[in-house]
């Protein structure tokens, strides 16, 4: 392992500044941990839906980052480099769960008649769009609905819609094709939409 350097002044340090001195400054690394742990934990929670696994992943990610610090090339910020590492750790953990690949991925709410026409539950149509303002205020309810999605769907939605990775990047993380990402993404959005509509219907938000 090449010697990690002092990286005070991050998150925008470049490779050049990382390689300036020759010893690891534990205080500097703690500063990085403090600055990034919350966001990384949040990412892991979204992907894994489980607090304990999420914490383990963040620890693993920091260990991995520490070991691989020499490979940080400064092409991105430290924050986005760590973000990628922790997403990879979380996805690896997710894939270890037996049901990750096996869970049924049927489309949740869309149904069409024999002519390919949308069969719409009139009670639901438009209510969601109208309730957007309220849903923006009631974030915890939306978060719960997202965490409640099946893991394989949630991962696609978390990476693409929440973390803002591209479809290609999401495909890389998940080890599936971009086309498969789109299928999961669509199903995840439909499932979430259905959950939110059911909550609105029940007068929850």
């Amino acid at each position, binding site marked *: 392992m090449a010697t990690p350097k002092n990286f005070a002044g991050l998150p925008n340090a470049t490779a050049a500044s990382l390689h300036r001195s020759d010893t690891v400054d534990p205080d500097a690394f*703690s500063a990085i*941990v*403090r*600055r*990034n*742990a*919350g*966001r*990384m*934990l*949040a990412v892991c929670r*979204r992907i894994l839906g489980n607090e304990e696994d999420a*914490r*383990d992943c*963040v*620890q*693993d990610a*920091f*260990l991995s980052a520490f070991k691989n610090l020499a490979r940080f090339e400064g092409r991105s910020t430290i924050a986005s480099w760590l973000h990628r590492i922790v997403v990879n750790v979380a996805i690896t*953990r997710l894939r270890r769960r037996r049901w990750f690949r096996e869970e049924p991925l049927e489309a949740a709410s*869309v149904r*069409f*008649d*024999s*002519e*390919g*026409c*949308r*069969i*719409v539950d*009139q009670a*639901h*149509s*438009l*209510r*969601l*769009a109208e*309730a*957007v303002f309220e*849903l*923006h205020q009631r*974030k915890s309810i*939306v*978060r719960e609905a*997202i965490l409640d999605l099946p893991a394989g769907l949630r991962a696609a*939605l978390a990476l693409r*819609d*929440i973390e803002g990775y591209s*479809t290609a990047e999401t495909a890389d993380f998940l080890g599936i094709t971009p086309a498969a990402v*789109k299928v999961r*993404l*669509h199903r995840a*959005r*439909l499932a*979430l*939409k259905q959950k*939110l*509509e059911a909550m609105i219907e029940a007068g929850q938000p």
Partner: protein
Amino acid sequence: MSSSRRVLRKLRGWMNRRLPLLLTCAEMDASVVDYLEGELSPDQRRRFHLHTRLCDDCRSFLESYRATIAVSRSAFDHSTNELTGLLSAEHSQPRRHPN
């Protein structure tokens, strides 16, 4: 659902499947991800727009679908730094490291 509504839907479905420029709702649905990713060809995009202009159900579906994305994006806005520091204490004593 009323029977006149069902008849109208049937009629619309019949037209959508037979007229060359029209999409069925199922086809619209199948291309909604590509539409939002900006990956439809200009021609496919025109058909998509035409369908949503003609079909109330798909128009409201698209609105709710977009709302779902926007809402999930904003749901985690303020949760990022709430637990900063929580891990710095644990970091010095990792519990386990797989493999």
